């Protein structure tokens, strides 16, 4: 299962980046980035997974004394939690700039934004 999740994560990164590279519409480009974002989250969580163990939450099911043998790595989960929240912030910024570009240039097609092209 963990190999499958890892492979899916890598596939999502590749698909998302392909979409982000080849599309010309800014909104489609940002959609590609969010797909790649989800892929990286999946890869990171899979790396922290240990087969046959359970979530890092102590309690009746996992007493603290045996926690070291029963739980999976909590650090990648904390990292991914941070990454998801920051990902929303990055997406919001990209969308705000995309709308700004639309408001000043009247287009979302990046091939028509030639000011920085040489």
């Amino acid at each position, binding site marked *: 299962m*963990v*190999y499958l999740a*890892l*492979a899916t994560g*890598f596939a999502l*990164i*590749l698909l998302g*980046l*392909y979409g982000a*590279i*080849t599309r010309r519409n800014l909104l489609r480009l940002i959609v590609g980035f969010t797909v790649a974002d989800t892929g990286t989250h999946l890869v990171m969580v899979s*790396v922290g*997974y*240990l*087969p046959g163990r359970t*979530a*890092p*939450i*102590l*309690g009746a099911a996992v007493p*603290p004394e045996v*926690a*070291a*043998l029963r*739980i*999976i*790595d*909590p*650090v990648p*989960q*904390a990292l991914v*939690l*941070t990454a*998801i*929240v*920051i990902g*929303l*912030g*990055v997406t*919001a*910024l990209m*969308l*705000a*700039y995309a*709308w*700004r570009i639309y*408001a*000043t240039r*009247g287009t979302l097609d990046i091939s028509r934004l030639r000011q920085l092209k040489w």
Partner: protein
Amino acid sequence: MIKRAIAFALLAGLGLVFLALWQGFEPDPSLNRSALYYAENTVTDTGAANIVAAVIVTYRGLDTLGEVTVLFLTAAIVAMVLRGGLADSGPRPGRWPTGELLHTGSRLLVPLIALFGAYVFLNGHLTPGGGFQGGAIIASAMLLMLLTDPARNFSHRLIATTESVSGLAYVAIGLAGMALAGGFLDNRILPMGEFGSILSAGAIPLIYALIGLKVGAEFSSILLSLSEREK
């Protein structure tokens, strides 16, 4: 087409790297050293049952402070970029009135969703959940209100006040940790309580509630500035 060929070559290279990583991947048989430390010492150090919450709020508390600061910056930049935008070109279709069903439903649902968000961040040290999830849920209550009545005037001042007061209180708790306990954002400034009860784990529920309010206010402000049409 050469551009497309370059894109494919790039992605193929990346795919090869990923393939090598995938083939060399082997799940660890046991926890690594830092994870082992967290597994063995979280209860004695922090008293929290949810180790992820303990890592986020206490062990890596400074990172979380940085994270909410990044979110605050994002909200501020989004508001700044979107202010004073040019008017839409072309005729704007009028706002369609939302239905009776949505109005009544949202009057019922919005308080419940907000309550659930508060439940999620207050129980973050015991069950899955925490400040970020709770804040996102509160922001979705806000989103429902926004969808029901797009013309409603939301109080920017209230959102800004919530955001800055909870942010200041967060930093103040961190400084209190330096004065009263082991260091910045140490949760042992409050009694540890009994393991597994809601008033336990020192300051973790308090800090998570503040993070929840702050994150909820920041997400709400991002949603508001992206949804508001220029007047």
